[in-house]
């Protein structure tokens, strides 16, 4: 299983042709306390770099973008019921959706962990 990162601070952890997607620890810390999450329905098609989900803190709403094009195969109801889980474990139990990738080639444009860490350090 390999994890990739976007410049919009999403991560995608790929197993076969299905990727689990969430927001990074860096993003969760920047957002502050998450109070509301809106996820796409299972079966919905999402497009790389287009809005996919919404995450709201006390102060503001932010869009979460799809790191790849594909179909949503699962949505994490646990973070809808308990949005604080996004802050507690953003890169684990606080995952957002699973996406069946339409084009595995889209992964090559994403960052690996080292590149993403360097990117965050430059922010």
């Amino acid at each position, binding site marked *: 299983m390999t994890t990739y990162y976007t410049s919009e601070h999403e991560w995608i952890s790929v197993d076969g042709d299905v990727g689990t997607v969430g927001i990074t620890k860096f993003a969760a810390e920047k957002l502050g306390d998450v*109070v509301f999450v809106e996820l796409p329905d299972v079966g919905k098609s999402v497009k790389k770099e287009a809005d996919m989900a919404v995450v709201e803190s006390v102060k503001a709403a932010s869009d979460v973008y799809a790191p790849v094009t594909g179909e949503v195969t699962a949505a994490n109801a646990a973070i809808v019921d308990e949005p604080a889980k996004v802050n507690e474990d953003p890169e684990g139990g606080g995952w957002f959706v699973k996406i069946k990738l339409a084009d595995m080639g889209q992964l090559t444009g994403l960052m690996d962990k080292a590149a993403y860490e360097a990117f965050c350090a430059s922010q």
Partner: protein
Amino acid sequence: MTDVSNTPLKTTPLHGLHTRLGARMAEFGGYDMPIQYADGIMTEHNWTRSHAGLFDVSHMGPSFLSLPQLGGGDQAHRKVASIIERLVPSDIAGLAPGKVQLTVLLDANGGIIDDLMIGRPPRDDQQGMLYIVVNAGTKENDFSLIAKTAGAEAELHRADDRALIAIQGPEAEAVITGILPEAVPLTFMTFHEIKNTAFGNVIATRCGYTGEDGFEILVPAEHGEAFANRLLEDPRVKPIGLGARDSLRLEGGMCLYGHDIDISKTPVAASLSWMVSKARRERGDFPGADRILRELKEGVPSRRVGIRPLGRAPAREGTEIQNTDGETIGVVTSGGFGPTVNGPVAQGYVDTTYTKTGTPLKLIVRGRALEAEVAALPFVPAKYKR
């Protein structure tokens, strides 16, 4: 709002302290201000509701409007009050010594230029002076308007050389008892000067912007950090940023200038008619009196109300409000998540037909109509010390 993109941000006397406390800083009202500290907005909000929060509000505009000669009792007070009453609809002449009044500066059309606090000093030898505190983002305009209105009759002294520090929450009084015991006898919306403290001559006002009991204390800038540190030494006190200040005031049903009120709103539309005092209504001698008196009698097309979204999704500023038939009837002017309410809360303007508490509304959030209803303000009961 003024364009601050090319202007270096101003800083308060506590700026260094914020940095050392690890605050996340951002621009507000032209100042580089702490939005939150390490604990985050939710924890800071809840701390203020259960203990005591310290807020740096030095970006606001404290000032004094003074006659050339102070003293002279009621007559001097009425004289200086008559000057500021040219700009506000409240009965400043009728303020008791030591009382503070929340009111609004009005333009000739009755539109709200700013909201502000005006206090009458308790001491005889200071009659003829008013303590005035305006908002940060509007203070340059407010101060020039007040100074121009006063002309040669009175002089406006800006208190830019001070720090203004708020301590808010159920434990604020206990904290202050050990540091500035002379402030403790104050009741809600009263103030007095306390001379020769360890932090110089200070002005303590029992007021705030959270719905909690608390104080706002004006101290000389050079003592600002020492005073803040003295408060922070108490384990009941934590520093609170502007993020939690906003969620606290929103739950408290208070207006944020530039959002819930602005020049396009009259006090009647803003549900602030209580600021237009009886004596002033009778005399009709305030800016925009024709329009405001007519609105008081005949009503306004839309009015500010509290709004409670029934789901979990917050409705932010600018959200369209519809009736149950899908017709547009208003707009949200501030909205977010209320940690004490444990749900979303908002304020907005709706057509007057829909202002009754419990009226069902639809909020259009990301293309979907979310259920909401008109709610009584405040969302969280005020705990002032009367």
